[in-house]
């Protein structure tokens, strides 16, 4: 169960970081 929680956390953190990259780029008005 705790393994699943850990992997779920990772599955949230990394995609959110990639979205964050895209968001910072869009703030400039560039392409994502």
């Amino acid at each position, binding site marked *: 169960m*705790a393994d699943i929680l*850990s992997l779920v*956390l*990772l599955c949230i953190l990394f995609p959110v*970081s990639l979205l964050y*990259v895209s968001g910072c*780029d869009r*703030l*400039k008005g560039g392409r994502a």
Partner: protein
Amino acid sequence: MSLNGWLQIALFIALILLMAKPMGLYMTRVFTGRRTWLDPVLVPCERLLYRITGIDPEHEMRWTEYAAVMLVFSAATLVLTYAVERLQNHLPLNLQHLPAVAPDLALNTAISFTTNTNWQAYTPETTMSYLTQMLGLATHNFWSAAVGLALAIAFIRGIAGREKKTLGNFWVDLTRGTLWVLLPISTIFALVLVSQGVVQNLHRYDTATLVEPQQQTTTGADGKTVTTTVTTQTIAQGPVASQEAIKMLGTNGGGFFNANSAHPFENPTPLTNFLQLLSIFLIPAGLTVTLGQMVGSPKHGWAVLAAMTVLWFAGVLTCFWAEAQPNPLLHNVDQHVSLTQSGGNMEGKEVRFGIANSALFATVTTDASCGAVNAMHDSFTPIGGMVPMVNILLGEIVFGGVGAGLYGMLVFVVISVFIAGLMVGRTPEYLGKKIEAYDVQMSMLYLLIFPLIILGFAAVAVLMPNLGLSSLANHGPHGLSEILYAYASATGNNGSAFAGLNANTHWFNYSLGVAMFIGRFLMIVPMLAIAGNLAGKKIVPETAGTFPVTTPMFTLLLTGVILIVGALTFFPALSLGPVLEHLLLHAGHTF
């Protein structure tokens, strides 16, 4: 404060300043693709690696691609470490038959080593097998340092670039940083450490019979005390030197043993202690010279190095002074330095290192994002302990971690130039690049994430008794310092512990894990965004109104901005922690 102590501190900084230039020039050659004396051996290795992995070294990356590839690489290596930890009981080189690492601790540790933090909520010698130490943790000591180095170089390329859309190739920077910088130096350093007595083997732990048996009293679950006689001691060992070298050089800090660099197998002699200190600052100091070389303004690199040196000196002076003071609660006790005693506060310090080397180590390890310790920061005086905490809270930009220190400092440079521009009413420029709204927005994002995570998580831990307070060994302002330090250390990717806090709980493992993750990756992204934006700009010619970034005035402004931002952000929390504890200590209260 002894003269002997000051001489050692002076020798340390003199050698760092002497080594900065050759190290910086060497790294400039490595990252600009110029010839080095290691090329005949390493270029074939590099080409082979690219051929095996299908990497095109000529491919240039925009900042978004650079960031995305870095994130994917970090995710993959993080999962590898997590898997090794969870499966170590089924894998070879588990000579002590240690069980699998618990899931929350395994996640915390995997994030910790991936992010160059090396926070250790576990006792290594009783938790990690040799395979986990080598394949799961020591590899990250190389990778995370190489990632930091690559990011700093990408930022420098952003400053130096003229109307370019790209920052280089992450894989090339990662490979060259590892092969040309980290591997050769850490190999030589590991051999030097072995020559001094640092252990390097794959033996099972030894058992020694005590010369004098010890009585040990423990309290059982039923509340009854049981006294047992201990007649043997387990002597832990393993492949220590190979991990120790990169632990310091890569500003990682995760000890092979729980006692870290206070352990005689990790740091056996005064020489190893001095070399470990030098290796922490070697690459960060050199990177300032690399900055100056790559942007075509060597004096700018020296100006940044000067700001770092000023802040380092302020820290070591305060810490050494505070630790050398007599304890005000010990009346009628001679606490002066003499041939028979170190004087001052020796609690939590190794007698063989004394006050000067403990204060210097604590300052250096937290100026950089190293986190290795040779003394217990928790046992420092309130002001002495505040110095490492402040160093971390300033963002670890005083020399800083490998790469991370320089790019953190450069974000402060952008803010300083912006403020200087506001003061004279001109559009701010940094080495010919106009600093515009987007650059300042990203800089502020970088600066705000850091205190938000530290103060936010610390507030939750303090306000929820079952989460944070139950883990404390000390209460009052000292307890607040312990929690504040933990989140500062995690978010700043330092990894040193103030101690006195049981961090191996579900709450701390997960919350500190998230803090480490955000403190690394969510701060890198806006930094790379600034670099990408700067790379695309035109160089405008310098005029009489341009604020020079090569003068003592710039060094002074940069130092002032760093201190003011840090003070405005964290002064209230510091007032309730170490400052209050200092005042109460002199009023006769301890915690």
